[in-house]
């Protein structure tokens, strides 16, 4: 879990800019595969097609079908086979095609991937990445837009990581592949085509897992968020300046382990917090975040930690999803409810 650079590979490959998040993810796998022959990419349509989101584009061509493999269509089988491959010393990087299509693999994930190291007293680690495109906002029909992060967060033994920027997509995926633990790597679908001037010359950072980052410093209140909701929060923070609020925005990046240090430090400073995610609110990630922030910062809080989340309903059809997804207005409404009259 160290911060390393991979300048050589980066230079050799001659990246162009700006790059999308999908491209950064592809590059992360490519660099990892070039460096480490035990890294194997597998899943439905990841080979010849390069994945339905083209995230594995070109890998089968460059590394051969044995390193980037189109599997039969069976998610439990894919993850189960990956467990066996990891048992033999490989580092599988598994792609689940969509969030809801990872559910068939749930038993393998919970009962084996998450527990294998523990049940064997460390003898049999599971260095494995399970990439899951997640969340909505892309007009997908039912079963294509679930925010399933809570299922993974609630399962001890897994790391749960989600990038919100192009840079992090690269840095965190490299770290996830390098990790000796299983990492559920949640890729925000609606940010796949987000772009950044991701410099091809500068050494690419491998981010440490488990560290949140302050994306925008502020003093009035803290917005705690991750993945697809980061852009929403940044926009809300800009809009809030008009109301005289200077909002700090924390991007969690890693849901497990949770970076209490960074988050609590921010909330202690600002005294108010709103958690923002598009996953359902009830028993969602925000519940844990609100609860632990409150436990740690109770006497610094001027108001209860509020949650802005998707509604507690099955994900809506494309034409209605905009009413479901927390947008800038809902974030600002929550900020307004932070009992400003009561405190400072």
């Amino acid at each position: 879990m160290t911060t390393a650079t991979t300048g050589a590979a980066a230079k050799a490959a001659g990246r162009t800019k700006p790059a999308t998040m999908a491209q950064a993810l592809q590059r992360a796998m490519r660099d990892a595969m070039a460096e480490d022959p035990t890294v194997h990419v597998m899943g439905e349509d990841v080979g010849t097609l390069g994945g339905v989101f083209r995230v594995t584009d070109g890998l089968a061509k460059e590394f051969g079908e044995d390193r980037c493999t189109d599997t039969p269509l069976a998610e439990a089988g894919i993850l189960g086979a990956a467990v066996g491959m990891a048992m033999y010393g490989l580092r599988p990087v598994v792609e689940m095609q969509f969030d809801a299509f990872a559910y068939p693999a749930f038993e393998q994930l919970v009962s084996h991937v998450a527990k294998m190291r523990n049940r064997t007293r460390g003898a049999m680690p599971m260095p494995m990445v399970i990439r899951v495109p997640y969340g909505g906002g892309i007009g997908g029909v039912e079963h294509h837009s679930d925010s399933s992060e809570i299922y993974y967060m609630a399962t001890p033994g897994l790391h749960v990581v989600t990038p919100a920027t192009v840079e992090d997509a690269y840095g965190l995926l490299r770290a996830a592949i390098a990790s000796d633990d299983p990492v559920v790597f949640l890729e925000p679908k609606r940010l796949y085509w987000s772009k950044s001037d991701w410099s091809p010359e500068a050494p690419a950072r491998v981010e440490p897992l488990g560290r949140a980052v302050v994306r925008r410093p502020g003093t009035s209140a803290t917005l705690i968020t991750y993945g697809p909701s980061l852009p929403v929060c940044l926009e809300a923070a800009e809009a809030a300046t008009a109301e005289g609020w200077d909002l700090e925005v924390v991007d969690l990046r890693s849901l497990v382990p949770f970076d209490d240090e960074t988050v609590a430090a921010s909330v202690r400073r600002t005294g108010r917090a709103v958690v923002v995610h598009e996953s359902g609110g009830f028993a969602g990630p925000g519940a844990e975040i609100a609860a632990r922030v409150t436990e740690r910062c109770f006497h610094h809080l001027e108001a209860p930690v509020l949650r802005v989340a998707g509604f507690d309903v099955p994900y809506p059809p494309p034409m209605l999803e905009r009413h479901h997804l927390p947008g800038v207005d809902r974030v600002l409404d929550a900020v307004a409810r932070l009992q400003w009259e009561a405190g400072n």
Partner: protein
Amino acid sequence: MQQRSSTVQEPHAETAHRPTPPPAWRPRTDPAPLLPDTEPLRVLGTDAVADADPALLRRLYAELVRGRRYNAQATALTKQGRLAVYPSTTGQEACEIAAALALEERDWLFPSYRDTLAAVARGLDPVQALTLLRGDWHTGYDPREHRIAPLCTPLATQLPHAVGLAHAARLKGDDVVALAMVGDGGTSEGDFHEALNFAAVWQAPVVFLVQNNGFAISVPLAKQTAAPSLAHKAVGYGMPGRLVDGNDAVAVHQVLTEAVARARRGGGPTLVEAITYRIDAHTNADDATRYRADGEVEAWRAHDPVLLLERELTARGLLDEDGRRAAAEAAETMAAELRERMNADPVLDPMDLFTHVYAEQTAQLREQAAQLRAELEAEGESR
């Protein structure tokens, strides 16, 4: 021989050289009749077609032409932004139509996400069938009214539903049959296995139709299975497997009709594999040139289901220019109506988000609904 001591009971020694199978071993079913024929059944272009009812042939033809046009229209609607996505069944119309026509009204159809055409051929309003793909709601119809289960996106998960429904009907004494559709890729899912096993153990009146169209998105059949055929899986469940040319509408109709009849008379489930081909890309969003050669598609165009039937009808004098024109015109009318109706924006009520989550709205959802209502009112005011 010395005196023997043994911890286990010893029968007479003279039986030693008579090999008997273990006590529990009773081959319960003869596997031979469960195995599919070595070649897929074809009727069109063979002598067997002489037995086919001309009315059926004409009906199939009209439906195929309509189905082809429906596929073209739905694809066009994606280009006009009227459908979020469309998985076409161009080239697979024989399977879609035959599946619908093999069923009685009281029977149930369990379509996969690709099978809107089968639902339409069963009589469902195409606009309702396309609701999912337009994106105004998930299921656009009342499944009980039409006895068509919701179009199913999580692959193969509808198969155990079909088994459960057929089983329930049988328990109730209704002679209802369920026909469930799945793709070649879907057969790899555990749910396929579990459904077929339940069906066979319960002798449920269900017919499984696998449309083997050669691909699961980009993945060709050879990477999906090493089996002699998908129909060969049947024997492992103790049910008959049938192999049929999926582009021969008459053959598919015949095999499915027989399987439905068998199920109805208590003969249990059947697995049917129809060999067909997806002429279009996986959906409009897919680029099929990334994973298959044009030549392959061309070979299949020569084996087109509409063509095969048209040729037969023409050769037998059952179809003339007028007939063709009539079929084409009927299809055109359907397409025009569909286009027009799909051009209207659906009327949406965002509050529907909360209406059908539970039988009774919970307090929690009432709160959230109130929030959305307030937002919508504020939005309305600000407009």
